[in-house]
């Protein structure tokens, strides 16, 4: 029925599509620009938000905000929120929520504190115990949500209350447990030797480059279109510049004048966070499990009909969420040098959810990435870091905090509205 013309049309219609275009840098750049115009922004709004905040605070408080020391502080301050948010990404991707994650972090810290300080366990044992507690909490929540079908809001609200109580019982009313273990303390209080810092930078850049080229080779072998080599080179180059610049900043001496000690190097928490990002991103983007998480969040019924065991996926996500919350709790304990019933808690949770959402994760499930937690967490951390420099009244700080959050979110929202208008 069809003429040769329409046949050729068919082929060309259908061949110009598989992901990356064949063209060079120019084409790649214009493609990216089209995507941006079309509203496919990825992490851009959060990154822009962070940059704007840095500029504003930098102008207002150049002497204290724009210092190497403050940059290192910032990373330390944001780490726990980021890790908590990474865990929440899994739960949010399902379209569920875990209100108890803040207190899960606290409980993890409490278990760490009790076993480490009161019972004198070795730190690997203590950390294992804390992580296992996280697995148990996640499993319990998931059983109730995925098997019994109770809404996760209610289940995690119940755990919010229950874990708060458990923390009080573990720590004792009004009590505090000091952390004195050097290994645990060093995560948030020590820095990598300078050489190791450079090695870290190298591994990150080389790993990224290797992965990019390897993926291209596979596609080429399969006869699928690939982007030009030059595009990849530019990508790798850009990453290298950013990573090297940041690491270089952290390698500077940053103690105050005449201080008796030298402080320099990448804080130990940085490689931890980087490792988590890489592993979890791999899990979400390159494995069946990750694919199924997105499917369940996008359309649980379709996922079920595709033969995916939806309760199992949910269970794993909640377990991941709670376990990462425990990691965040351990970071908090390390940073505070102590654990008390206020460690973690409701505010921490809200900031973490806020971080994930600002980063671009949807609360309705199906959309979000691990790096969202990092970029969003960075925004939240910058706000928390910069505000006390700018104003002293806590009432005013709360208000500005809210305003900045709103601003960061509107960048995202406005761009996504444009995206919706263009039909994505």
């Amino acid at each position: 029925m069809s003429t040769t013309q329409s046949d050729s049309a068919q082929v060309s219609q259908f061949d110009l599509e598989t992901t990356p275009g064949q063209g060079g840098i120019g084409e790649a750049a214009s493609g990216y620009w089209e995507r941006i115009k079309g509203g496919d922004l990825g992490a851009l709004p959060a990154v822009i938000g962070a940059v704007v905040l840095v500029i504003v605070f930098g102008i207002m408080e150049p002497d204290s905000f724009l210092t190497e020391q403050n940059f290192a502080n910032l990373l330390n301050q944001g780490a726990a929120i980021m890790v908590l948010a990474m865990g929440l990404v899994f739960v949010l991707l399902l379209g569920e929520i875990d209100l108890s994650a803040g207190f899960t972090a606290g409980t993890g810290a409490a278990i760490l504190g009790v076993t480490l300080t009161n019972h004198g366990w070795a730190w690997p044992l203590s950390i294992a115990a804390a992580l296992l507690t996280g697995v148990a909490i996640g499993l319990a929540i998931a059983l109730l949500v995925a098997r019994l079908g109770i809404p996760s809001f209610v289940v995690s609200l119940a755990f919010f209350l229950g874990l708060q109580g458990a923390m009080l019982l573990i720590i004792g009313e009004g009590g505090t447990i000091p952390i004195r273990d050097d290994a645990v303390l060093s995560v948030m209080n020590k820095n990598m030797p300078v050489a190791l810092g450079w090695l870290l930078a190298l591994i990150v850049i080389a790993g990224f480059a290797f992965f990019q080229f390897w993926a291209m080779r596979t596609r080429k072998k399969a006869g699928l279109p690939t982007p030009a080599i030059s595009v990849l080179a530019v990508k790798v180059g850009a990453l290298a510049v950013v990573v090297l610049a940041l690491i270089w900043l952290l390698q500077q001496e940053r103690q105050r004048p005449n201080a008796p000690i030298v402080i320099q190097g990448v804080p130990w928490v940085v490689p931890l966070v980087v490792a988590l990002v890489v592993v979890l991103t791999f899990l979400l983007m390159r494995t069946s499990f990750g694919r199924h998480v997105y499917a369940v969040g996008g359309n649980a019924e379709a996922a079920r009909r595709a033969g995916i065991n939806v309760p199992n996926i949910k269970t794993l996500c909640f377990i991941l969420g709670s376990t990462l919350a425990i990691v965040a709790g351990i970071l908090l304990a390390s940073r505070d040098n102590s654990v008390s019933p206020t460690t973690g808690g409701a505010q921490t949770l809200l900031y973490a959810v806020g971080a994930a959402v600002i980063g671009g994760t949807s609360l309705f499930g199906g959309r979000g990435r691990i790096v969202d937690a990092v970029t969003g967490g960075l925004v939240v951390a910058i706000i928390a870091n910069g505000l006390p420099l700018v104003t002293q009244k806590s009432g005013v700080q709360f208000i500005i905090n809210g305003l900045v959050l709103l601003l960061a979110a509107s960048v995202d929202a406005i761009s996504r509205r444009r995206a919706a208008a263009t039909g994505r």
Partner: protein
Amino acid sequence: MTQAVEGQQRAPLLSLRGINKSFGAVHVLRDVDFDVRPGEVTALVGDNGAGKSTLIKCIAGIHPFDDGEILFEGQPVTIHGPKDANALGIEIVYQDLALCDNLDVVHNMFLGRELHSGITLNETEMEKRAGDTLKSLSVRTLRSLRQNVSSLSGGQRQTVAIARAVLWNSKLVILDEPTAALGVAQTEQVLNLVRRLADNGLGVVLITHNMNDVMQVADSIATLFLGQMAAQVRAKDVNNTQVIELITAGRSGDIGLKPREAAEAGVA
């Protein structure tokens, strides 16, 4: 249709016996018997709301049924969910499609049964195979295999769902109104495909309201009337008008429900 005669003697691949299903107080399926033979296209027809899709969902394990039995290759089986149905080799294209809007075409087609190399997903292989299958279904105008299905047209979505079902080596393929949204050329392709699957020895169930399609490809025709199986007959034994009578009245001449039964079905 001619091949059907040879296949007629073969034992049923799937048999339903006395299936009953109620939604709350509403009795949707009543004592339904249904047979699907390998190498045949079995058309399942019936008026809107007759219970065709519900029957399919009972086979898939999406709705648990209240009563009755499923035999697969002669053995009684219990199907608790789509996973069990897949394991038996049953592939289903649902009327409401059930695609994940937030995933792209390739991901949707391989959902639940992704290809791997090691523990990582083998995206290149999946993309290649998805492209090949879609091309064989005469899909045009699909801009990209990496486009989210949310941005597809109604017919494109339907094609993806069909392509998804025929990717696998299954024993039984069930298609619930697969051509409803398809264009002329695509419909032709799907009907060819249906015939081809049956000729390869698979059992195929085709639900449709289009009598031309039924007459064109079906070997056997099962008619649901208000939740009851009015009759399952050889396609060559009936004509268009008779089938339409079965659909709208539950009987035609001496085939179909007894007059009393038909009236009861109507009233209850």
